[in-house]
């Protein structure tokens, strides 16, 4: 057995032992850091936002690196929002200030206005449920970028979907259609909304146009989710009528869609837009399959 | 006891971008230095003299081989309290005065405060620095810096002193001072190991020398023995010899140098001196001097070094 002192006195072993010790210390940093992070919560750096001077002051302080800083803040917005969604939280109070700072730092960061407005306007738990804040954000974006027509599109959207203010929505779409580079359908949209704001068909038209024209993958997906929800609501309404019809003519009352298929009321088992079959509950109500990816809450 | 002993001390440097080429700065140096002697490490620039000293003080690490200082392994830190090192063209902390610098050096040896003050004071006196004891070192001339360097080397009263090119860049006065210090150290039975490329200094000071060239030991030995080696010639200086006398003397002369009226002849063999003197006397040529010419260190050096090139 080599004694410890002999082991340590040999220079090479001593050095190896030192390196090993250093490595252990390094690994020891991890739990310390984690415990600090845990206590502070991941909001720590972000809560500072409430205390920061205005974004414009920060812009001056950033000494030419405001673009980089804007990107950093945008990443923090995404992290913050994502973290809240994962935790099923309904408290998004820092979202507004964070977006304010981000867009102050870089008024041309379109993604901050567009996604920011979606995060803000969507109802909890999907978003902050603050459509008016979303509008304020978009307006500031329009002031900084008057010719970017898509921001008008987003404004129109918030009015249409979240505030159900159809005249204002129509005006927004109209204003957007006058901007250079605006798509043709904006004018058609303006007209349709003005005429038949509350109709489901208008909504379907709106969302399908967005999905078709969206330059951005995320926005397209968002539109498609809305479309699927509309489609599913439509399907469920029609299926309910069909079941009522069946029950009025047949005994016993329908327990599953198989009965309707067998009786010729349906050609095949009905599926929702995501491909999952609808469920006829024991209480006679039509529901979405639990494994369906359609989100009906979008229609509220 | 041997003061210094190196055993196959070798240093390789890896050069080039990919560290592929190997340059051998010191090749299996094996030296022995006796206690109490003044040992000179000679060699042209780049021979490996500074490399040797730095290896001994572990400022660079040997690729292979080992060494012993005062009987202990050279990586034994305790031995450092009994030795001293003065690097070539030394640099010290600019803003300190000699007094402050010496007390700091002394404190690194762990000397108590009173002792530090006493020794710094003594050395400042001994090396003629009293007038500038409170002047910051950055205002010192080269010669004075060298004196401070020697002072800091002696602060711990070492038994063995290593000096790397101690005379480099000094004026004749400075060089004499350094020579005196070395001689005084020898008087006190200290060992001095110094490297130089100035042969006359080695001649006057060293008991033994070693010659390094291209990192290899070319020769080593007692100075007297080296200087007595080989044939010693005799030099004859004549004034205004006639052509006939010259013709007679020519067969015996290994070299002839004319400077105006004077002719210097070197007679190759001792046995021939009598004959040539007879010729001179007979012709009544004026004889200025007759001197034995000792083989110089330069000859030895050039022979050792020249043999390699």
């Amino acid at each position, binding site marked *: 057995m080599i004694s410890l002192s002999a082991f340590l006195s040999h220079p090479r072993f001593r050095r190896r032992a030192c390196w090993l010790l250093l490595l252990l*210390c390094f690994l020891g940093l*991890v739990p310390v850091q984690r415990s600090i992070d845990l206590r502070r919560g991941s909001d720590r750096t972000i809560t500072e936002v409430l205390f920061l001077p205005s974004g414009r002051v920060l812009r001056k302080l950033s000494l030419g690196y405001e673009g980089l800083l804007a990107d950093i803040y945008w990443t923090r917005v995404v992290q913050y929002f994502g973290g809240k969604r994962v935790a099923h939280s309904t408290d998004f109070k820092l979202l507004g200030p964070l977006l304010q700072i981000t867009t102050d730092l870089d008024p041309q960061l379109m993604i901050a206005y567009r996604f920011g407005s979606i995060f803000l306007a969507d109802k909890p738990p999907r978003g902050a449920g603050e459509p008016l804040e979303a509008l304020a954000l978009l307006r500031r974006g329009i002031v900084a970028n008057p010719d970017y027509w898509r921001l008008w599109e987003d404004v129109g959207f918030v009015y249409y979907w979240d505030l159900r203010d159809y005249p204002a929505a129509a005006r927004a779409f109209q204003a957007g259609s006058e901007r250079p580079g605006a798509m043709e359908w904006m004018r058609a949209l303006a007209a349709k909304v003005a005429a038949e704001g509350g109709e489901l068909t208008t909504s379907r038209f709106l969302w399908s146009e967005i999905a078709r024209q969206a330059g951005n993958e995320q926005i397209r997906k968002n539109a498609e989710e809305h479309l699927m929800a509309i489609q599913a609501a439509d399907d469920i309404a029609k299926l309910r009528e069909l079941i009522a019809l069946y029950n009025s003519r047949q005994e016993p009352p329908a327990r599953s869609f198989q009965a309707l298929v067998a009786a010729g009321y349906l050609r095949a088992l009905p599926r929702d837009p995501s491909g999952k079959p609808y469920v006829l509950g024991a209480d006679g109500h039509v529901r979405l399959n639990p494994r369906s990816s359609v989100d009906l809450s979008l229609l509220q | 006891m041997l003061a210094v002993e190196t055993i196959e001390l070798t240093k390789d440097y890896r050069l080039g971008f990919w560290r592929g080429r190997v340059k051998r700065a010191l090749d299996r140096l094996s030296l022995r230095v006796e206690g109490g002697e003044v040992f000179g490490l000679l060699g042209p620039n780049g021979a490996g003299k500074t490399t040797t000293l730095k290896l001994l003080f572990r*400022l660079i690490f040997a690729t292979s081989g080992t060494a012993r200082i005062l009987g202990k392994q050279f990586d034994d*830190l305790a031995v450092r*309290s009994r030795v001293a*090192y003065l690097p070539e063209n030394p640099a010290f902390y600019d803003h300190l005065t000699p007094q402050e610098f010496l007390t700091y050096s002394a404190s*690194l040896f762990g000397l108590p405060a009173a002792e530090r003050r006493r020794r710094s004071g003594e050395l400042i006196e001994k090396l003629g620095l009293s007038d500038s004891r409170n002047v910051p070192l950055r205002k010192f001339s080269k010669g004075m810096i060298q004196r401070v360097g020697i002072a800091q080397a002696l602060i711990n009263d070492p038994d063995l002193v290593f000096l790397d090119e101690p005379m480099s860049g000094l004026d004749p006065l400075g060089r004499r001072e350094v020579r005196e210090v070395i001689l005084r150290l020898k008087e006190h039975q200290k060992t001095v190991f110094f490297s130089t490329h100035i042969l006359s200094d080695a001649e006057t000071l060293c008991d033994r020398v070693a010659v390094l060239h291209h990192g290899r030991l070319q020769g080593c030995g007692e100075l007297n023995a080296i200087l007595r080696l080989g044939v010693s010639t005799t030099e004859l200086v004549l004034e205004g010899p006639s052509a006939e006398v010259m013709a007679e003397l020519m067969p015996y002369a290994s070299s002839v140098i004319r400077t105006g009226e004077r002719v210097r002849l070197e007679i190759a063999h001792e046995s021939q001196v009598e004959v040539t003197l007879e010729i001179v006397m007979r012709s009544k040529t004026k004889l200025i001097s007759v001197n034995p010419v000792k083989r110089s260190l330069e000859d030895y050096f050039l022979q050792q070094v020249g043999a390699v090139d």
Partner: protein
Amino acid sequence: MRVVTIAVHTFKESVRQKVLYNLVAFALLLIGASILFGSISVGVEQIILVTLGLSSISVFGLLIAIFIGIDLVSKEIERRTIYNILSKPVTRAEFILGKYLGLLLTLVVNTAIMMAGFYAALFYQKRALGPGDLVYLGAVYFILLQLAMVVGIALVFSCISTPVLSAIYTFCLYVIGNFSADLRSFGQGSQSPILGLVSNGLYYALPNFANFNVITQVAHAQKIPAYLWVGNSFYALLYLAILLGLAVLIFEEREFP
């Protein structure tokens, strides 16, 4: 102890550097000026004084730490004064530790001077100091911990690189260390799981300076929670041990041809 001797000598040497006086003078000037800035808008004078004052201490402290940090080893090697020390019975570890302690002392003294200036300005503004003002000591303590780490980083770079490069690397690492959480977000946001893993590893490996930043909290009269005192002190201690160990291990292998 030789370490203490070297430390004291290093302290005396770095204190004579003119650059230090200039930096401290600027810091005090800025702290004084923040009183003026505060008087421009009503109600926020103290917030502005505290924010600007503590930020000045942080920024100038950083500059001082970098300036004196690079002197640690690079200068000694460049000026060749190192031969005299290493040929004495002094181990390389003692040399490094002594140097670090000396510079740490310099840093502490300079920070104390700036802090005194800060409290003087605060007194001038408020006409009286109360126990609530002790919380700023906490902020300065955290700043000191950060700076101790910065000097440590400068020390490590100083052992392997030239003075100018060491300063640059140290500064870069300081900036990165402040954004390490964002770095991790960038990495985790990307699609590649490898990048996510790497950025996570980097988050823990890089010095996390954001932990120590309590200036805005303190300016808005919030208390510093207890776990942060303990956590930060422990973190700094651990990280310093690593840095110093690294510096010693590197320096022991270094040659001076």
